[in-house]
């Protein structure tokens, strides 16, 4: 702040305006914000004096809607939280309900889930990192990795039939196993992606202009980050090795070996590099899961909660009854309260679920990482240039869907 005041007094151009601040509305729809939220900036010439965030432009009241829906129908809502990595949200929700009910999941389902979640993480990080580059003016890398993201989406399509809002999986497992095409596409992806990714990395990581634009931009200290409740890559960039996958392993993450990359300064460069490294770690996890994939069923044996296959519904009386009961939300879930969190692409994605034994949750709260770390934005960009604020925002990976819920 003191530096800022000095800048203001030394800057004659600003003096001519009698030190008056101008207001700039960044958003709600602005090409640089990648989502619908508003920043009202008080500008000193090109420096940001202070800023204020306005949220809620796409608030869809998911927590309220969830109070009126059967458990199986809440999964599509979670798709629309962080829509760059929907599978992680879907699987997180399924696992929350499984924890409430107390279902034991076969090992194979765990491994299949790990593969899907790590693919989603790669897709999310690719978007984030390539968009940082786009915001600094480097468009080429973006076109490289978007092709790779497309391959990931094709794999999702093969598994569940959808690409962006996937609604992947069921309570208790998956609706079907990975088919041959999915496996083939996955293997091809694992073979070819590292080379493409290397191309992307060499394009940017030794690029003088790019480095100048991101080093020391939008830093946050470890202590402040923790106080703000940061999680995920943004916290790790500040130097704290907190990762839900390691701290509180779910879905058999303890079976895999992976490193948790950490940064030092918590600036845009660190956030970029942490995500780059995490993509490599995710690839290694997928490879390990493919190698160690156990045989077995692709869903748990819980007919009261797991939607039966359509062929059974049409031919077997019992399957038809369960199908009807599950769709209408007539199966009984136990009373209770669970907090379950997964390591989403942006950080700790938590589900706080309270059930009174009824057909829908009594209360469901989504702990959304974006919403929580976005409040630090105004502190991080104070005194910075406007163009740096844009890069800071894209490196934090603020996703409007997760912000508003």
């Amino acid at each position: 702040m003191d530096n800022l005041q000095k800048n203001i007094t030394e800057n004659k151009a600003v003096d001519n305006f009698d030190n008056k601040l101008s207001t700039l509305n960044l958003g709600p729809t602005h090409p640089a914000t990648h989502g619908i939220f508003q920043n009202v900036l008080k500008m000193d010439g090109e420096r940001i004096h202070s800023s204020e965030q306005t949220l809620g432009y796409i608030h869809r009241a998911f927590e309220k809607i969830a109070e009126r829906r059967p458990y199986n129908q809440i999964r599509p809502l979670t798709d629309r939280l962080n829509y760059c990595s929907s599978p992680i949200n879907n699987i997180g929700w399924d696992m929350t309900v499984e924890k409430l009910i107390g279902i034991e999941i076969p090992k194979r389902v765990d491994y299949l889930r790990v593969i899907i979640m790590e693919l989603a993480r790669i897709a999310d990080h690719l978007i984030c990192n390539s968009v940082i580059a786009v915001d600094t003016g480097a468009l080429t890398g973006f076109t490289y990795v978007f092709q790779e993201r497309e391959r990931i989406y094709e794999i999702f399509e093969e598994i569940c039939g959808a690409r962006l809002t996937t609604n992947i999986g069921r309570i208790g497992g998956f609706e079907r196993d990975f088919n041959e095409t999915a496996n083939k596409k996955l293997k091809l992806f694992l073979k070819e992606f590292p080379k493409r990714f290397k191309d992307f990395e060499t394009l940017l990581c030794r690029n003088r202009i790019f480095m100048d634009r991101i080093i020391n931009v939008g830093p946050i200290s470890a202590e402040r980050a923790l106080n703000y409740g940061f999680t995920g890559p943004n916290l790790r960039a500040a130097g704290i090795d907190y990762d839900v996958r390691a701290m509180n392993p779910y879905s058999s993450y303890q079976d895999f070996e992976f490193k948790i990359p950490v940064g030092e300064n918590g600036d845009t460069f660190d956030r970029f590099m942490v995500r780059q490294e995490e993509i490599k770690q995710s690839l290694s996890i997928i490879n390990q899961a493919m190698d160690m994939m156990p045989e077995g069923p692709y869903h748990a044996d819980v007919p009261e909660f797991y939607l039966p296959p359509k062929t059974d519904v049409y031919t077997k009386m019992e399957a038809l009854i369960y199908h009807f009961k599950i769709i209408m939300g007539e199966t009984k879930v136990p009373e209770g309260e669970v907090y379950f969190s997964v390591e989403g692409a942006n950080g700790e994605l938590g589900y706080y679920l309270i059930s009174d034994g009824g057909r829908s949750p009594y209360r469901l709260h989504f702990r959304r990482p974006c919403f929580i770390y976005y409040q630090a934005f105004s502190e991080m960009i104070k005194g910075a240039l406007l163009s740096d604020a844009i890069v800071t925002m894209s490196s934090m990976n603020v996703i409007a869907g997760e912000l508003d819920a």
Partner: protein
Amino acid sequence: MTNEELKTHLLSLIPQATFVETGEFLEIFIHSENILPLMKNLKDDEKTQFDYLFCLTCIDRISSFEVVYHLLSKNYKHILVVKSTISNIENPQTETVSHIWKTAEFHEREVYDLFGVKFINHPDLRRIFLEDDWKGFPLRKNYSDPNMIEL
């Protein structure tokens, strides 16, 4: 600290507190008047060091409101759930913890927006998602809207 040690420590701070241990984490139930000294102590005490508030939300229990704080200590890796009951449902209010954990600022605005629980001494208590002139608080169980279809 183990759950037992935490319990004795907490009882020395608030003797009338009750505990629930059936769930995954240790839960402490207190009245909302005691919230501020307890939270300050939990954050600053060398023995507890709850430096990370990872979830803050509210539950409408019809006869009362329950504000739920999930706390974690990065050093000791222990977790505590604090449930503070607000019995005044006409005009629910409680002290803010946003000066202890900065992250609570948006959380509390969210709770105010959707439940109408006022946080005393909050730096900027406004609605966060809904418009300023929105009538009622949607996540309350008695909220009704003409467009909402009864199930």
